[in-house]
């Protein structure tokens, strides 16, 4: 081998140097590894001085390959590739050895850590000498954007992009945009009415010339890659001609069929079979629910059609499909509410006056089923006492370990509404009170002054089994007051369960459809939890809102805007670089067996009928290597991951156990395996 390799070992402050003997490793690499002409260690390789070190050596020492032993390539591979490029070296001739994440952070023994770092570096040095120069390709970015989900996150993202002059397709599953926020009454901590701040934005979306609002629609298929996605959208039949409908609402008025509204009214109220979820719906066009519609059930009725003044009702309408091309996609698909019946000890569904937070929210809403009156399930009796149970399905090993983030503040808001609207005594049973955003702690203070009671303790049970005088016909809440160290039985008229926020039931399928990952719980995974919260590991796919994790409205809006800003950046730049680390098929060796075609997770491989061989679209290919491993004829090679490169790396990693190298692997003391 004739390559001149430079090895750079980063201290990362004490992150690496505190465990790995960096001086020793640098000295060893310079002396023992074939091809290494320069070997240095430095406090922070990622600093500009560290980068200059590499650049100078390339220029002055004539380095042809670079190995940086530092953190994970996820973090700084780009930095060091850029440094190489600055000095005129092809950036793909640089390799990183992750001696922080894979060594110093996980190996406690200093001697073993030092040995492991050496092995990692030996692997990288062996491999880098076989690297080839690669050139990224440039593709244009389509200025259209797809936003999935019309809650406040999707609305914000759409408006930001549309106001900046870029076309947006906003897809919403329900008949109207607005999401959960449209169901709420007040918003904490300022208590401004949710509808008052949301509906102007909704009508902006409806009227915006740059927004193509596709309500009652779902994304059916996604293909393509960053800058150039093709999306097929299914527009579910509304049975109402959108062109003709004026939104007058006569059809709704005349429809004789009433059903319980499980979605918008959370089961608390009714809607007709032809309906829009709420009066300020955007778009204002009703849809027919075929499952309950008398005409679809029995073939008779047609009241809506008879009375419609513009002949907009069309019972023959079919689902239709719309194909659009977009450059970027923002997923803002929101959340589902925890099913409180999964905690039967709280009696929801069995004890009438146990309510979920969303039911209570609808009840407080002036346009809700009780016109804003807080009443028991009978619809008339005002409660004399209300108890709010926190953390129902959150912070609970049996359900969700995470904190749902918004419930403490919602509970305080509910407390305020009870104080404002009724004479009832209101009590909160909390585990910890979490009020850590702007104005939140002050709101908590306010509720303390307004007379809301607070008991620290997770509620054990809500029961109707009266035991003592005063408990008859009440709900009895059994809770350990952990501040006083006593058990309490609190008889109340109404219990409100602060249900956890959960990922959408179909979040994993949606993630798969768009090629992004979900966390263990099912929240969409961001590229970096702190520094890249709205991007994903798939270029061109962004996430915003609660779909990424529980958060309150200000944070959701910020994420919606942030995702839009990221997309705008892509559009303004106009082109995007495509990684050259892709697989290619040697046509002469390909037998046309097509095994690889179905295996490719990115649909990047097609079969060329005329040539009878498979072909990999390099823009779609992510370089995962699945096809490379699967090809029975070994006709596929993965750039940057060729067999030779990988074997060389393995040989390097095992340098100290390969006989004849003179070195011996460190002996790890193991506990004897029990017989």
């Amino acid at each position, binding site marked *: 081998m004739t390559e001149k390799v430079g090895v750079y070992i980063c201290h990362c402050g004490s992150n690496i140097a505190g465990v790995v003997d960096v001086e020793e490793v640098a000295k060893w690499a310079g002396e023992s590894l074939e091809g290494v002409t320069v070997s240095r260690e430095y406090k922070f390789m990622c600093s500009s001085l560290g980068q200059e070190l590499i650049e100078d050596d390339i220029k002055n020492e004539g380095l042809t390959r670079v190995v940086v032993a530092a953190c994970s390539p996820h973090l700084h591979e780009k930095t060091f590739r850029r440094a190489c490029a600055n000095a005129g070296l092809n950036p793909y001739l640089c390799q990183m050895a992750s001696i922080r994440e894979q060594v110093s952070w996980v190996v406690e023994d200093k001697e073993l850590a030092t040995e492991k770092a050496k092995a990692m570096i030996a692997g990288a040095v062996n491999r880098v000498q076989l690297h080839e120069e690669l050139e990224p390709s440039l593709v244009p970015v389509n200025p259209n954007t797809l936003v999935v989900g019309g809650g406040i996150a999707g609305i914000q993202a759409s408006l930001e992009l549309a106001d900046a002059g870029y076309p947006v397709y906003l897809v919403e599953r329900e008949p109207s945009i607005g999401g959960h926020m449209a169901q709420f009454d007040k918003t904490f901590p300022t208590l401004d009415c949710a509808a008052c701040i949301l509906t102007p934005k909704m009508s902006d979306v409806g009227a915006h010339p740059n927004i193509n609002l596709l309500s009652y629609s779902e994304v059916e298929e996604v293909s393509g890659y960053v800058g150039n996605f093709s999306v097929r959208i299914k527009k579910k039949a509304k049975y109402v001609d959108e062109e003709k409908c004026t939104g007058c609402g006569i059809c709704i008025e005349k429809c004789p069929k009433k059903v319980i509204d499980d979605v918008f009214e959370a089961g608390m109220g009714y809607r007709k079979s032809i309906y829009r979820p709420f009066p300020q719906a955007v778009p204002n066009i009703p849809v027919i629910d075929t499952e309950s519609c008398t005409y679809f059930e029995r073939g008779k009725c047609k009241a809506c059609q008879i009375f419609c003044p513009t002949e907009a009702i069309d019972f023959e309408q079919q689902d239709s499909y719309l194909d659009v091309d977009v450059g970027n996609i923002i997923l803002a698909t929101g959340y589902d509410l925890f099913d409180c019946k999964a905690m*039967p*000890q709280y009696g929801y569904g*069995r004890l009438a006056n146990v309510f979920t937070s969303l039911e209570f929210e609808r009840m407080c809403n002036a346009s809700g089923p009780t016109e804003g009156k807080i009443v028991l399930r009978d619809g008339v009796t005002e409660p004399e006492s209300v108890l709010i149970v926190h953390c129902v399905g959150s912070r609970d090993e049996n359900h969700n370990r995470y904190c749902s983030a918004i419930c403490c503040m919602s509970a305080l808001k509910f407390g305020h509404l009870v104080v404002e609207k009724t004479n009832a005594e209101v009590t909160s049973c909390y585990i910890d009170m979490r009020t850590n955003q702007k104005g939140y702690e002050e709101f908590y203070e306010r509720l303390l002054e307004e007379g809301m009671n607070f008991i620290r303790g997770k509620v054990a049970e809500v*029961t*109707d*089994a*009266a*035991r003592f005088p005063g408990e008859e016909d009440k709900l009895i809440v059994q809770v350990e007051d952990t501040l006083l160290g006593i058990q309490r039985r609190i008889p109340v008229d109404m219990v409100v369960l602060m249900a956890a926020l959960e990922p959408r039931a179909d979040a994993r399928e949606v993630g798969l459809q768009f090629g992004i990952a979900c966390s263990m719980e099912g929240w969409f995974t961001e590229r970096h939890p702190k520094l890249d919260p709205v991007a994903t590991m798939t270029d061109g796919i962004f996430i915003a809102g609660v779909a990424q994790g529980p958060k309150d409205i200000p944070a959701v809006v910020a994420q919606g805007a942030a995702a839009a800003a990221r997309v705008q950046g892509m559009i303004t730049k106009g082109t995007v670089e495509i990684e050259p680390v892709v697989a290619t098929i040697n046509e002469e060796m390909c037998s046309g067996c097509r095994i690889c075609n179905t295996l490719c997770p990115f649909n990047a491989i097609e079969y060329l009928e005329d040539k009878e061989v498979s072909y990999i679209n390099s823009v779609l290919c992510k370089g995962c290597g699945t096809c490379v491993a699967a090809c029975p004829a070994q006709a596929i090679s993965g750039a940057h991951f060729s067999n030779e490169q990988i074997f060389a790396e393995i040989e390097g990693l095992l340098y100290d156990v390969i006989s004849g190298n003179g070195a011996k692997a460190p002996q790890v003391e193991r506990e004897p395996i029990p017989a």
Partner: protein
Amino acid sequence: MMKEYAYFPGCSLEQIGLSYHQSSIETTKKLGVELKELEDWNCCGATTYFHVDELLAYALCARNLAMAEKDGLDLVAPCSACYKNSYFTNKYLKEDPDLAEHINYALEEDNLSFSGQIEVKHLIEVFVHDVGFDEIRNNVSKPLEGLRVAPYYGCQILRPKKDDEDVEQAEYFEELLSAIGAEPIPYPLKLKCCGGSLLISNRIAALSMVRNLLQNAEENGAAVIATACPMCQVNLECYQQQVNQEFGTRFSVPVVYFTQLMGLALGIPGKKLGIGKEIVAATPLAPYAT
């Protein structure tokens, strides 16, 4: 056709729960079910042994299972604790080949082995699932009309949870009582623990648990409480006097086994069912026990 089961009465049914034993045998016989007592059964480990030495406790339960398997019969236990211990031992042995290997090594000493071929059932499940409500209804000759019964499940027969079972709101006990013509009363505490062996370690706390159950059943109009477990029966009946002394209450609720009620409805003489041996006299049953 006669349904056959390996019958594991457990220690309680030999003495304090004798009437449960007698009524179990009588009612099953009447309904075409044969309970074949395991010849050399041993203790299930009760509530304590699993906390002392888990592996040995599994071995104890597995011995009964292995003997039943040898006879090719599913194991039936009338006692909830015997049932629960045998049930989950059976389940774990089936799911954990490592544990099964350990246990079978121990069983070898007794020339036994267990390969997970049988099921474990509580006696009440035999009536509910295997015999069926229709069959029971067809055999009832003296329906217990007008008898208000509190079905007391206790905490053990519903755990561990089986597929599709609503462990918090079970209804099958009620349906069984309806099938024999009695009137099951709804009361919220039907699944709450009776205190188990807590009476030994914390008498007041345990008596308070018993008090809650008695109060809840009585306030909801129960004439008798029906149990499916000798432990529950003892706690609810034998300690009623102590509850009354401790809390100044005046409970006098008879606590009988569900099999005794079934037996009466099937026309079996009360004496054969062990009726008449109660501490709290079962007077509400008098009209039916002729």
